[in-house]
């Protein structure tokens, strides 16, 4: 975090940068600090360090059911979004067909579309085909909404690919199918992992789309949301802290893989 280091030459800019960082991260710091506070979310400053709330969290089966549901949905979404996203990225990179520019914009649309629109449309679709709302609808919702993320990431990976390698493979007698499995896909490995991590993280804390498509089984963010309506307990702070740590870890792995793919080909 370079901007947070005070610079002698531009004190005003440094102060401003620190203010922005405080604005972003102070709430998270407070949230984490109170997860260790014996007296709960009330009182300032937090005192009496305790792991009590974490203990309580680990004994709370409803939370862990929600975590399991979220993991299932996220894993499914990764598989669905990567498969369809790879096909879309291949089409964008290689095929030329009428309406390609339009297709490109349409595929990327869910990235900028508010989740509430995506969620509502998917709900209407589910009602239309008479599908019961459950984890399956949530999985389809996440999976389709995140195709655009997969497409963007994998398209970038494909653009960086050395096409001469694929030509060399065809030249050596490999069919296009063999070339795809033996050359194209292994070279896209880092992009696939990076896209998968990002999609996984996004699916894990998705609320807007989920809100419309959820049945009886809660995902983790929905479970937390539900509990908040009955009042804040430090247990929520504890689970939120865990989510924060895991998210930061996944995003940093994603970021490192991404910069590595970019560097490898340049």
């Amino acid at each position, binding site marked *: 975090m370079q901007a947070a280091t005070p610079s002698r030459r531009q004190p005003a800019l440094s102060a401003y940068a620190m203010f922005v960082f405080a604005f972003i991260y102070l709430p998270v710091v407070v949230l984490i600090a109170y997860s260790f506070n014996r007296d709960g979310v009330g009182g300032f400053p937090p005192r009496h360090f305790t792991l009590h709330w974490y203990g309580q969290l680990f004994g709370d089966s409803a939370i862990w059911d929600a975590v399991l549901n979220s993991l299932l949905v996220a894993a499914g979404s990764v598989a669905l979004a990567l498969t369809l996203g790879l096909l879309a990225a291949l089409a964008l990179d290689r095929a030329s067909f009428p309406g390609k520019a339009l297709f490109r914009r349409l595929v990327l649309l869910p990235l900028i579309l508010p989740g509430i629109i995506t969620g509502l449309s998917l709900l209407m679709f589910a009602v239309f085909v008479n599908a019961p709302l459950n984890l399956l609808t949530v999985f389809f919702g996440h999976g389709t909404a995140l195709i655009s993320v997969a497409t963007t990431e994998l398209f970038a990976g494909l653009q960086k690919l050395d096409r*001469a*390698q694929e*030509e*060399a*493979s065809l*030249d*050596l007698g*490999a069919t296009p199918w063999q070339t795809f499995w*033996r050359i194209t896909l*292994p070279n896209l490995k880092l992009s696939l992992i990076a896209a998968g991590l990002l999609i996984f993280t996004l699916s894990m804390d998705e609320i807007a789309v989920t809100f419309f498509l959820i049945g009886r089984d809660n995902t983790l963010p929905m479970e937390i949301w539900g509990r908040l309506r009955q009042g804040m307990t430090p247990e929520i702070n504890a689970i939120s802290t865990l989510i924060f740590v895991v998210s930061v870890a996944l995003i940093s792995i994603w970021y490192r893989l991404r910069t590595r793919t970019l560097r490898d080909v340049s």
Partner: protein
Amino acid sequence: MSASVANGSHVNVAAGGTLLEVRSVAKKFGAATVLKNISLDIAAGEFLTLLGESGSGKTTLLRLIAGFEAPTSGEIWMSGQRLDTLPPYRRPVNTVFQHYALFPHMSVQENVAYGLHVKGTAAGEATSRAEEALRMVKMHEFAGARPAKLSGGQQQRVALARALVNRPQLLLLDEPLSALDANLRKQMQSELKSLQRELGITFLFVTHDQEEAMALSDRIALLRGGALEQIASPREIYGHPATAYAAQFIGQTNLLHADVRGGWAVCGALRWPTGEADGPAIFSLRPEVIACARGDEASAGAVAFRGVVRQQLFGGANETLEIACGPEQILRVRIPAAEPLSGEHTFTFFPADAIRVRA
């Protein structure tokens, strides 16, 4: 060998039968015409070089033969089989790519065995043939290494082994030496040449380097702006360039824009007998066919003229002189290494060495 045949004719090569025929092939990318109606034959066992500047269409022609591009019109045949309608993976040709295009996620051994694996060759046979191919290019000790760990020259050898392991009838080489430094390049040139002789495989080699083309090739096909300028042996194309462009591109030359009248060609201060018909004509006079006559006497049959030495460049075994033999007439002369020259001298050449070329 029918010698100075240029611009599109079929060429009969005495040695071996015809392996590959390019028949009236043209290629357009959108509105741009990259190849204009090219026809050429490649004989079995031949080392043929496609020589030309960038944009001459040489790489496009190679890619048409490899199957990465389809011709806009025309046909390509190989040993009685039509080639241009087959996908690249069904063509009995293999390519050495300009930047090698080795597979980074495979070891050297896996790279070389790849072509055999994808064709379903038994694992044992694939391994032994890959090892044999690696031994051929002296890379068997690096079988387990990843391509990224190898130097440019080593990667080049692996790319060669990978292309040869399938035992192609025709090997296509797309500027394979251009990424190597000068010394390594010379060494690889000689290794390529001896490898081609040993294996008897037909090589189609693309380069923009005329020295490389002359050193390696049985024949050179000189391309210019998507058309065939001249196709002939290096000696033929150097000694009897068909056009002014060929004369200038291959080696150095003096182009003399002469006027022919009554059996004599006149160009500035130079005048020599010629069998050409009356009218304007261009002649190519190589720098080394002009001699510096010490003692002011010319040998019999030679044409003599006076020239002032303007510049002398020492080149080890020889000297390159720039001489002025009239207002605005500068000639380049190459003579064996001599002491520093200055002032006016007599220079001579034999009329037969002034080669008539087309514009």
